C-alpha cells in the first residue's frame, strides 16, 4: 500500500520540516507525491506553487519546481505560469487563511476561470504560522487567540464556495484517510480545468490545544468522527438524554462536483 516510492521526491537536506509535531500537513504532502508518481507526472514540467502559511511551506520540501509566493496569491502566480506555459502541470498548495481569507478573491476567480490548475486547500481551521488566530473556516464557537470567547462568525464551506464559483472539479479529503487522498489528488490533477480539493488537516499545536481537541492522534480520529456517514449515524442515535455536547459539523469527503471544463 505504501509501495509507491515518494522519498526520492523529497528535498532530504531540508528535513526535518518545520511543521509542529502531529501536524497533518505532512500526510498530505506524502499523498500528493504518491499521486504525482502514480500519474507519472513529468517532474520537469510540474510546478508546485504555494502562498504563505504552514501548508504553503510544504512546497519547499518537494524536490521539484517549487514556488513559495506571497500571502494569498499563490493562485495568481499559478494562473500566470500556467497560461504562459500551458504544458506545465501546476499544482497549488494553500491553506484556509491563505486561500479563503486574504486569497479568497483569487480562489473564486480561479474557479470561475477554470484554468487547468489543481488547488489543494489544507483546512486546519486556523492561522498556524502566526500563532493560532481564527481562520474563515473556524466554526462558530471555535476558540483562537483572536476569538478568545469563541468565534461568532459563520464559517466558509470551501467546497460549496468553489462549486458556486465555477470550479469544474471539487473534492474533499482528509488526512485521516490518507489513501483516499492519493486518488482524489490524482483525479484532481488529471482533470482538465480548475480542480479544487479541500483537505481537512489538523493543527494540534493551536487549534487542537485551544479547543481541547487533543493532539494529532485524536484529531485524526475526530476527522473520522465527522465523516458524513459516521456523523449521521451518531446523530440519529438515541442517547440517555444527558447533557452531551453537540458534535462538530459533518465532513463530506470524496468528489463532490465534477463537470467537463
Amino acid at each position, binding site marked *: 500500500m505504501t509501495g509507491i516510492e515518494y522519498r526520492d521526491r523529497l528535498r532530504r537536506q531540508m528535513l526535518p520540516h518545520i511543521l509542529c509535531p502531529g501536524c497533518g500537513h505532512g500526510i498530505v504532502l506524502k499523498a500528493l507525491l504518491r499521486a504525482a508518481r502514480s500519474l507519472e507526472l513529468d517532474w520537469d514540467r510540474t510546478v508546485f506553487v504555494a502562498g504563505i502559511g504552514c501548508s504553503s511551506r510544504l512546497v519547499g520540501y518537494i524536490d521539484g519546481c517549487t514556488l513559495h509566493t506571497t500571502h494569498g496569491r499563490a493562485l495568481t502566480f499559478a494562473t500566470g505560469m500556467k497560461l504562459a506555459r500551458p504544458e506545465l502541470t501546476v499544482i497549488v498548495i494553500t491553506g484556509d487563511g491563505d486561500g479563503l481569507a486574504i486569497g479568497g478573491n483569487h480562489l473564486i476567480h480561479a474557479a470561475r476561470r477554470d484554468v487547468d490548475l489543481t488547488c489543494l486547500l489544507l483546512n486546519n481551521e486556523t492561522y498556524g504560522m502566526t500563532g493560532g488566530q481564527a481562520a474563515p473556516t473556524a466554526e462558530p464557537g471555535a476558540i483562537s487567540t483572536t476569538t478568545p470567547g469563541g468565534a461568532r462568525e459563520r464559517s466558509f464551506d470551501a467546497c460549496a464556495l468553489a462549486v458556486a464559483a465555477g470550479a469544474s472539479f471539487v473534492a474533499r479529503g482528509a488526512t485521516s484517510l490518507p*489513501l483516499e487522498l492519493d486518488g482524489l489528488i490524482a483525479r484532481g490533477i488529471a482533470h482538465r480545468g480548475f480542480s479544487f480539493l479541500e483537505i481537512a488537516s489538523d493543527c494540534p499545536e493551536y487549534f487542537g490545544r485551544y479547543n481541547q481537541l*487533543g493532539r494529532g492522534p*485524536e484529531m485524526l480520529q475526530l476527522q*473520522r468522527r465527522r465523516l458524513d456517514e459516521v456523523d449521521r449515524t*451518531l446523530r440519529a442515535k438515541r442517547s440517555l*438524554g444527558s447533557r452531551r455536547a453537540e458534535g462538530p459539523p459533518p465532513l463530506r469527503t470524496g468528489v463532490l462536483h465534477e463537470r467537463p471544463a
Partner: protein
Amino acid sequence: MSSTGESSSSVLLSGNEAIAQGAREAGVGVATGYPGTPSTEILEALVRSDPDRDVYVEWSSNEKVAIDVALGAAIGGTRALVTMKHVGLNVASDTFMTAAYTGVRAGLVVVSADDPGMHSSQNEQDNRFVARFAGVPLLEPSDSAEARDLTVAAFEIAERFDTPVLLRTTTRIAHARALVSVRPARRPDRGGFRRDRPKYVMLPGFARQRRIVLLDRLAALAEYAETSPLQRVELGDLSVGVITSSIAYQYVREALPEASVLKLGLTHPLPARLIRDFCSRVERVLVVEELDPYLEDQIRALGIAVEGKRFFARAGELGPDSVRAGLRLAGAVAETAAPAAQQSPPTTPRPPLLCPGCPHVVPFLALRQLGAVVTGDIGCYTLAASAPLEAMDSCVAMGSSIGMAIGVRRSGGASAPVVAAIGDSTFMHAGIPALVDAVTNGTDLTVLILDNGTTAMTGGQAQPGTGSTIRGDPSTRIDLAALCLALGARSAEVVDPYDVAATHRALEKAVASSGVSVVITDRPCVEAPVKVRDTPFAVVAERCIACQLCMNLGCPSIVWDGGLYEGRRRVRIDASTCTGCAVCAQLCPTEAMVPLTGTAAGDGR
C-alpha cells in the same frame, strides 16, 4: 404415554421463578433486591406474576438498602422478600447481622444465590456460614419444586420464630427449570407497624437483651430443626448413608438410587439428634456437599465420624460426574467402566465478550492507549481486562474501583495515570461514598463512569440512572454529572463513547487535571432494556487495506473476510449482529466501513 397427557397442576419453572411463586403464595407484600447473577430473575418473575401490583417491588440501589427496605416492611407488618447474589449479602450483612437481633414482625426472607463454579462472580463464598454467623435459620432447596416449598416455609418459620430467614440457592438451582406444582397467589397481609423500641432500637442496652433473645431463639430453632418436615430421611441400603443438601442431593440420588439419604432442607441450626439417629442406622456416613465442608465440620463436631471433602472437591460446582467419581473413590459405588466418552477434537476457546456495539469498548481503548492504571469494577466492562482491550488492572467488589484507585494513587507505585472505571449502576451502588472520600481527602483521581442506563451484566435491570422502576414506570433519573459535581468533583464531562476522539480527549484531559475529574460516557446498552439495532455497517472490500486496526475493538461482528490484501486478511462485518455503532468507521483509515444502505453499493471513488 399419551401425547396430549398434560400434567395440569405442574409447570416448568426455574428455581428463581419458583421462589417468586412461593413468595406470592406466601402473600409477600414487599420485595426488594439488587440484581446479581444468579438471583436476578426472582424479582423479575415476581413482577410478571403480579399484574395487579399487589406487591411493592423495587430494585434497590444496593443490597444494604434492599434489606433495610425489606426489614422495615417486615416490622411494618408486611411479609418481605429480599434477593441478592452471594456477594451481595456481604453488602447487606451489616443489617442482616443485627436483624437477627431485632427480629421481624412479618416474615422476612433473605435470598442469597450462591455461585459455585463462579459462572459470573468474583468469588465462590459459601454463604451457609453467614447464616450460622448471624444466627438465622438457613434453608436450602434442591430444585425448583423445593424452591417454591421452602420459600413458603421460610416465611412461616420467620414469623413463628420472629427472625429473618436465609434462603440459599445456587446457580444450578436458580437457573435450572423443573416441574413445580403451583397454587394461587395470596394477597399480602398488612399487619401495620407496632412501636416496640426495645426490640427495634439497637442501643447497647436493648441489644444486650436481644442477644439473649437471639440465643434462646436459636435453641428453639434447633429443636424445630429436629422435627421439621424440611428434613427428610430416605432409608434404603444401610451400608452407606449420605447426608446432603441442596443440589448435591440430586446427584447423590441419581448416583446412589438405593442408598440411605438424610436430605436436609433446614441446615442451620442443624438437627443434631436427627443426624445422630441417621448415622447410627447406617454403617458408613458420607457427607456430600458443594463448596466448603459446612455440614461435615459441624457433624464431626458432634463427634460423628463422617467422610466428605476427602472425596469431593471443595472448589467449583459439583455435577453428576464429580459426585459419581467421588462416590466411586469412596467405594460407595461399584467401579464400573465409565462410558467411553467421545474425545473432543481441539476447539477454539470462546471467552465472554463485550457485545457488538457495546458502549464500553471505546473508553477502554482510550485508557489502554493512555497507559493508565485502571482499577475496575463489577459489570460487563470487566471484560475489558481481557484481549484485545486489555485495559483493566483490578476488579474486586462492587464500588471497589474508586477506593482502590485512591489507594494506588497514594501508594506511590503508579507513575501512570490512575483511572477508576465503574458502571453507572455500580457507582450508584457503592461508588458514591468512595468518590466522596477522594474529594474530601484531596486525591488526584479520574473516575470513568460508564453510563449505559441499565444494569447490563445481569440482563438490563433498572437502576437509579435508568429513569424507570422495575415495573417500567417512569421515575426520577439521577443526573450523574450533577451528582458528581455536587459531591465536589472538579469536573464531570459527559461524552459519547461512540465518539472515539471525544472519549479519548475527555479521558486525556481528565487524567491531566488535578483533583477528582469525572468522565461519564453516555450511550444506552445495546441489549437492554431496548435492543439497539441501527443500520449495520459493511466493509467496502476494495477499500480495506487489511490493517486490522478495527479488530482491536474485539467486536464480535468484525471478522476476517476471505479476501486478501498484500497477503493480509481483509475484514468483513457480520450485518446480522452489527448494531451500527460506527466506532470501527472511526478507526478505519480508508473509510472502508460504511452504513449498509450508504455508499457500499455505489462506490464513487
